């Protein structure tokens, strides 16, 4: 009987969850849904948490789903604010966008790797499988292991757009599903190379210069560092008062400080 009960309980739980997911339109005046990029999500969650602490009556609901889904949700009014980790496409320009921060994509290697700089062309060569050995870059004659993100990831989309252009990442690439696990692989494998959000870089790995520009908050902010992308909030038409209030908070000095502390590059 215990098993059956467990099943029934699980079934009910699934029903309830499904119910919870389908009720998108909880747009009471004091609740706000923010949906979109999974890259923006952790930062939006952090800042929403603090916003809710200041405004006790407000409930902010931060969801993932990807940039495209977020923009779509915003247009369909399923979310008051859509988030995106890429620029709007031409057909999306009917929406209003606010850049809330910039994120650099750091190319990382193991600290033992003596290479400090790669050009975009070299990066493209590595990830398309053309350069196979580190000896081609004047280091040991051992294979290069390059780590890609999973299909659908915003970071991967940005990397493909900025580095790969029309070429495809070779299917020999190792694949990991988060910035953290990519970093973990690079940190334990001297022959590996990968890319992660600049904010996630730590002492375990070494961030390379790209086209001789080192990734720093300054070089990312002024656009010198080539691999950066904007984090965007999107609203459809005139935002609701609460949505406007939240956007203002994110763009305020306090909000920007929170984002910078979390590893993004502010826009102020």
């Amino acid at each position, binding site marked *: *009987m215990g*098993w*059956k*009960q467990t*099943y*029934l309980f*699980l*079934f009910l739980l699934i029903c309830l969850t499904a119910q919870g997911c389908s009720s998108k339109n909880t747009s009471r005046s004091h609740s706000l849904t923010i949906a979109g990029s*999974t890259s923006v999500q952790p930062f939006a969650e952090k800042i929403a948490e603090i916003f809710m602490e200041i405004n006790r009556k407000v409930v902010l609901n931060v969801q*993932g*789903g*990807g940039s*495209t*889904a977020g923009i779509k949700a915003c247009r369909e009014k399923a979310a008051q604010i859509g988030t995106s980790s890429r620029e709007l496409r031409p057909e999306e320009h009917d929406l209003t966008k606010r850049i809330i921060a910039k994120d650099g994509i750091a190319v990382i290697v193991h600290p033992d790797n003596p290479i400090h700089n790669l050009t975009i062309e070299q990066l493209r060569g590595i990830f398309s499988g053309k350069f196979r050995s580190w000896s081609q870059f004047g280091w040991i004659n051992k294979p290069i*292991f390059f780590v890609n993100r*999973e*299909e*659908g*990831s*915003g970071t991967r989309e940005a990397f493909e757009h900025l580095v790969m252009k029309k070429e*495809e990442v*070779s*299917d*020999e*690439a*190792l*694949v*990991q*599903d988060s910035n953290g696990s990519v970093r*973990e*692989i690079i940190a*334990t*494998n001297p*022959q*590996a190379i990968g890319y992660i959000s600049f904010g996630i870089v730590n002492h375990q790995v070494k961030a390379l210069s790209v086209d001789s520009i080192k990734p720093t908050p300054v070089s990312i902010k002024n656009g010198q560092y080539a691999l950066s992308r904007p984090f965007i909030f999107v609203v459809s038409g005139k935002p609701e008062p609460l949505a406007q209030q939240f956007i203002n908070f994110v763009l305020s000095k306090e909000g920007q400080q929170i984002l910078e502390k979390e590893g993004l590059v502010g826009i102020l």
Partner: protein
Amino acid sequence: MNEKIIEKILTLLAFSAIGLLLLITIFIFKEGFPVIVKAGIKDFLFSAKWAPTKNHFGILSMIISSLAVTFGAIILGVPLALACAITLAEFCPRRLLVFLKPTIELLAGIPSVVYGFLGVILLVPLIREYLGGPGLSLLAASIILAIMILPTITSISIDALQAVPLLFKEGALAMGATHWQAIRLVLLPAARSGVVTAIILGMARAIGETMAVIMVAGNSLKIPVSLVDPVRTLTSTIALEMGYSAGDHRTALFAAGIVLFIFIMSLNILANLLMRKK
């Protein structure tokens, strides 16, 4: 009266469990089928190009990887599990058995993420250093899975060995066979269907395992050509990509689920048939 109500409730609960299985089946097929039709069953099963956001839905490399990892686990795990089972059922004093059997079964209780973690920390660097390649590999996944299926195969095999009538063994011993000869020539053949069932259930467990495999297999989409090549199984693909997937991409993941479902169902049905034969 009271008795009747309880009976009804129990029946209802029992059917809700079966109903749940049915619902899941229908749901997976309903969600996954459109993309198989769209891509064409041939391109879906026999193309190795997987880029669902760019309309390529070939899962051949994942099928090959899933099978390779599973067979690797069986090749490494079965001798170990059989040795365990024979020792525990035949050579082990009763007192040690009551201690050892639960210990092996305890292996099944360790969460798979822990196996994966151990694999990444211990196994992967060893493979990288001594065998080459990135370390995250078919071999690493097979070894981890071999350990994970050990308890399943061992405990079912023990039961199968112990279910062989004592008379068989006594007969063999009386004919002058040694203990090992009796095991090899009489006990094992008599317990064969049970042992094979154990192996098949072990396979079903291996092919369905996700977390540990994601962590140690490297998840590369290329069809593996050597043991140290990274691989991406069906389960890994679903777990890795479902977070971001939308539209056809999501449907394609469900379609991969259908293939996995068919694999596991066939294995289970096979195991059931064999058990009935016994």
